[in-house]
């Protein structure tokens, strides 16, 4: 208000582009992900299939974690139903792209191309989310968390009883993914890169990598845009968001839908990664682990969700593999901890350590500019009508 230039506050928007913010920093910002992506492309050439397999599992979990983080970290809505939406995606894929019959089983399948199965998995998880979203739009925080709990139990029941779709208690095998002319199995066509045979693990690495890159990109764009800003304000002050013109219920419903679509895609990949689906892959514990991923990674950060997913889904496997060189363990037969037990304990301790020493999550480690944790900004009389019903 103090300089001499004449500023206009007219309601016409002047079509002058914003000054390009420091060109070099911007270039660097674009270069880093590209270089990282290129490096990831080369990984299968250098490592054993064990690592590409672990990597595919991480990619699958990361997509699910990004979706959950949009809901919980960005919008401040708690959901324990993530495992349910993963299950919907996984089971839909297996049914749509699986073959019916088999010898002694009642398992059915439509035998459609795997790409169709994957799309159906995402769509049906989204549809399930859409059906639940009127409830999600009316509840807030922990209340939504508890309400969503119900979905996990329903999901478990369906997994066990819809034998034709899910294979019931024993589960069913996941059909191998393929695009026309290329299978993500171990043959068809046989593939060698630099003399290294590219089997299922290597191929799936690329499948997961590309899908994760797309999922990451979409979420990244979303957060820096009109809907993303609305979601973040909704988290910090629902009243302020509403008064600024955000249709709170519609936005809560939409982010719930989007989050379940991410979960559906993750479910398809999890099914591919495990090679089979069974009820125990989609229990409440899985929902909780996804929450752990986004908290460990850093609430609201897309990269953090990926880091958290890597942490939660890879660490136990790695601990197990290297159990013999880890502390805490004794040799088999000596009566101490077994390798799996040791791995679990170490995993548990690591989680506690991260939350204790890095409350902003793994994303906080990488951040150059310290952003304060979300300030609790409350609106005028904060005893206002609660539970998301801005009347």
């Amino acid at each position: 208000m103090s300089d001499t230039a004449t500023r206009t506050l007219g309601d016409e928007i002047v079509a002058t582009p914003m000054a390009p913010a420091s060109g070099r920093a911007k270039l660097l910002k674009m270069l880093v992900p590209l270089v990282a992506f290129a490096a990831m492309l080369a990984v299968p050439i250098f490592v054993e299939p064990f690592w590409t397999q672990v990597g595919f599992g991480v990619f699958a979990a990361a997509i699910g974690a990004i979706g959950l983080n949009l809901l919980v970290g960005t919008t401040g809505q708690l959901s324990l139903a993530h495992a349910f939406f993963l299950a919907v995606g996984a089971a839909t894929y297996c049914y749509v792209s699986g073959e019916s019959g088999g010898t002694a089983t009642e398992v059915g399948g439509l035998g459609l191309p795997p790409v169709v199965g994957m799309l159906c998995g995402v769509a049906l998880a989204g549809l399930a989310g859409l059906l639940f979203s009127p409830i999600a739009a009316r509840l807030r925080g922990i209340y939504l968390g508890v309400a969503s709990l119900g979905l996990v139990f329903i999901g478990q029941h369906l997994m066990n009883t819809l034998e034709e779709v899910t294979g019931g208690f024993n589960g069913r095998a996941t059909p191998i993914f393929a695009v026309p002319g290329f299978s993500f199995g171990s043959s068809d066509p046989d593939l060698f890169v630099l003399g290294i045979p590219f089997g299922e693990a290597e191929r799936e690495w690329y499948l997961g990598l590309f899908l994760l890159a797309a999922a990451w990109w979409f979420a990244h764009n979303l957060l820096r845009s009109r809907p993303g800003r609305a979601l973040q304000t909704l988290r910090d002050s629902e009243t302020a968001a509403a008064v600024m013109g955000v249709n709170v219920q519609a936005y809560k419903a939409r982010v719930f839908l989007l989050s379940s679509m991410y979960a559906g895609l993750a479910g398809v990949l999890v099914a591919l990664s495990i090679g089979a689906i069974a009820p125990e892959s989609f229990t409440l514990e899985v929902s909780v682990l996804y929450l752990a991923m986004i908290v460990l990674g850093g609430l609201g950060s897309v990269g953090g969700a990926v880091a958290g997913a890597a942490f939660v889904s890879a660490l136990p496997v790695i601990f197990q593999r290297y159990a013999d060189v880890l502390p805490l363990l004794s040799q088999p037969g000596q009566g101490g901890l077994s390798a799996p037990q040791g791995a679990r304990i170490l995993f548990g301790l690591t989680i506690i350590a991260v939350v204790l020493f890095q409350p902003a999550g793994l994303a906080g480690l990488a951040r150059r500019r310290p952003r304060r944790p979300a300030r609790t900004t409350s609106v005028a009389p904060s005893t206002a009508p609660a539970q998301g019903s801005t009347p």
Partner: protein
Amino acid sequence: MSVRVERGAGPTAAGDRGIPPLVVRDVTVQFGALKALSEVSFTVEPGTIHAIIGPNGAGKSTMFNVLSGVYKATAGDVRFGDAVLTTLRPHQIAKLRVARAFQNIALSGTQTVAENLMLGRHHLTAAGFLSAGLRLPKATKEGRLHGQRVREIAEFLELGDKLETPVGVLSYGDQKRVEVARALCTEPDLLLLDEPVAGMNAEETRRMAAAVLEIRSALGISVVLVEHDMGMVMGIADRITVLDFGRRIADGTPEQVQSDPEVIRAYLGSGDDTEESSA
């Protein structure tokens, strides 16, 4: 304050812009046994600065919550032109160009000033989940255009150099200015300011008062001002409504209100909290 705010080709009278009066009629708000507002009526004439004053707990913020659709009135109605605000939801009221700056700062602390201000453009823009996530050209172009306007408003409120700063690390006075700027970013016809200078020093207060005058005269919009700083209120308000315990005890020009015996009694009788925020 030499920066001028203009709408298009210069100052316009409110009449030309078709800004309607805000008519509040017999509004009552009841919280259990407590009547936060009892049959309060007043009219905000187009293009005026209308102050609502009263001791703490008089019901001023409650009135704002009714005007912006956050609370439902137990009885009575509020009309803004043809629209009956008391039947609408907050986001629908925002679309009618009613904007509000909150008394208790209600910004998003982790987002930058620019991002917070861009929220003010929400109802003027259209990018949805899909077009934003896929970076469709229409979404990015829209963001760029409105970013420019946000920059202008930020500079008008002396926030131009803080656009990329997360709001959470700003001083209280700066955050208050972001509140006002965000409301202004909605291009309102009616601007509701709830204690915009609370916690500001004398110089900041003077500048904010000048900014409010500038906004009114250049944009021709109506401003409803809730404020404890009597110097500011008497200096810039065209008309004042006085509330006490949820009742309207006076309504008139600053001169009329200042000499009203009931107003004097209300302020003296309530332990006099009128000066606290101008200190």
